């Protein structure tokens, strides 16, 4: 990924586009603190507890159930009223009836929804979403649309995708990576 400078304020909704391999994922990992920049400076004044990260991998334990997965992250992120919040999120994303099943038995789309629950669980200030819409079915995509438009303005977003049509109306900033 070559040189780039990017300034984001609180409440921005940045849309990052670019072909595969243009560094979208690397940029998100850098901002999340999962990768170290080899040059230039990087300053993210958002504490780790306030970052929500949705990656290509769902970052969920296949052997644990949906509730157990969210409970694990809820404890690590010290989410208050954890049980209620998990129930509400699973409800919103249509996963309530499969809450006690192993994540390993979920379809790709259901896993993506559960991953979204994980990323939104602790009400992060900064949301880094890497290709959030892929593998979501139409119903899942509408749920995500609603979620994004509701939270727009109250949180800062960085959404990377290679088909921006769906998110275009929400975006306040655009960044095209070559």
């Amino acid at each position, binding site marked *: 990924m070559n040189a780039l400078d990017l300034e984001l304020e609180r409440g921005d909704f940045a849309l990052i586009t670019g072909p595969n391999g243009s560094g979208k994922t690397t940029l998100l*990992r850098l901002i999340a603190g999962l990768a170290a920049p080899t040059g230039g400076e990087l300053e993210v004044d958002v504490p780790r507890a306030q970052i929500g990260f949705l990656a290509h*991998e769902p970052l969920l334990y296949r*052997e644990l159930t949906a509730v157990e997965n969210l409970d694990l992250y809820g404890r690590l*992120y010290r989410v208050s009223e954890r049980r209620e919040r998990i129930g509400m999120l699973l409800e919103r994303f249509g996963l309530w009836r499969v809450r006690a099943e192993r994540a390993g038995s979920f379809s790709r789309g259901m896993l993506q929804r559960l991953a979204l629950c994980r990323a939104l669980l602790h009400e992060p200030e900064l949301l880094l979403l890497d290709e959030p819409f892929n593998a979501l079915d139409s119903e899942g995509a509408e749920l995500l649309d609603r979620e994004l438009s509701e939270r727009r303005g109250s949180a800062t977003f960085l959404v990377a995708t290679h088909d921006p049509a769906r998110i275009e109306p929400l975006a306040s900033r655009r960044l095209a990576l070559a």
Partner: protein
Amino acid sequence: MTAYAGDVLTLARKDLRLELRARDTVPAMVLFVVATLVVFHFALPAASGDLAAYGLLWVALIFTSLLGLVRGFAAERDQGLLDALVLAPVDRSTIWVAKALAMLAFLALAQAVALPAFALFFAGVSWETVAGVALADIGICTVGTLLAAMAAASRTRELLLPLLFLPLAIPIVVGGVGASVVEEPGRYLGFLAVYDAIFAIISWASFEYVVTE
């Protein structure tokens, strides 16, 4: 301190639940150690006596722990979950402490079968041996868990861990065998305790750099 301990408990419980659910590490370790002891029976010529048997016990224990350690970060590595744990607002060394405790539990379970089996097949297991095994387990789990995280970050995972672990396990074997064989094993148990202390501190201080860039 309680937040630290809380995170360790959360992560350790997750590892134990994963093992209960998948049940793939502990049974494999138990069968492996008993099978190894049986193989050693045939490997020991008649007149080799008890000393050789104790030596082989420790070889079996070291390689059984290797079997468990290789599985250590398997779930995290296969599903790329280390990113999630590193991203969580926890002190990164809690990941190491929790995984080391889980490994300790698995090792203890395997040895709960291995030591009686050894007593049955070969020679009596003295209290000093049990103390030696306990102290050695701590050393194995502290160093082994960190090396397992290192191996998980490399391309040749299962191949690399034994190479990284065995040189560091030599002092543990010396301490362990000494504790089981020598009349007054106090020095050897003390040595194992010193080993545990030194490498626990180094592992605790450097684990963060193993999982972050």
